[in-house]
């Protein structure tokens, strides 16, 4: 992936149970300091998504790495950035505390 160039990545999620699950996901970027350069244009995260029993879906993320990444001396040794998602089952009436998110 070249900083500044938009890129597409896919994850897959499966609901192995026989009940529909409503889930919501959040993400993590490693190394931590690279997170500020990671810009998501569109993804499946932050909103509740419903997975039917045994359903398996592709989850796309469309993103780019901020070109300022190459200017940051702290990032000079970083050539691998790992993006991970955790899917939580959404509980009724409970909203994830996401600072600044409307």
């Amino acid at each position: 992936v070249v900083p500044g160039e938009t890129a597409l990545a896919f994850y897959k999620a499966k609901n192995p149970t026989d009940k529909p699950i409503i889930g919501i996901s959040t993400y993590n970027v490693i190394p931590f300091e690279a997170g500020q350069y990671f810009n998501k244009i569109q993804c499946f995260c932050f909103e509740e998504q419903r997975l039917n029993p045994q359903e398996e879906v592709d989850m796309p993320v469309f993103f780019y790495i901020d070109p300022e990444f190459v200017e940051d001396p702290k990032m000079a040794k970083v050539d691998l950035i790992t993006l991970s998602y955790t899917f939580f089952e959404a509980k009724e009436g409970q909203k994830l505390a996401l600072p600044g998110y409307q």
Partner: protein
Amino acid sequence: MSTAMNFSSKSFKPRPPDKGAFPLDHFGECSAFKERFMKCLRDSGYESGACRQRAMAYLECRMERQLMANEPLEKLGFKDLIDEKSEAKPEKL
């Protein structure tokens, strides 16, 4: 939520996506486009830049099926590919 994976003083603050969320493609309407894109990635040794044409095709598929908000492709970082397309057009008839 707190991912207590790192106990450093800084905590990771997730940011929502710029253009919002993709609805799930429950019926796999764009799976074929996704497969073509993934094949390209595998063949190119996972060079994202080599597969932008197919990434663009995937996003176009989503937009056509209301699985993504319509956005001009130039604004999604595909301006150079669009310009190539329109330059190629006069030669094709």
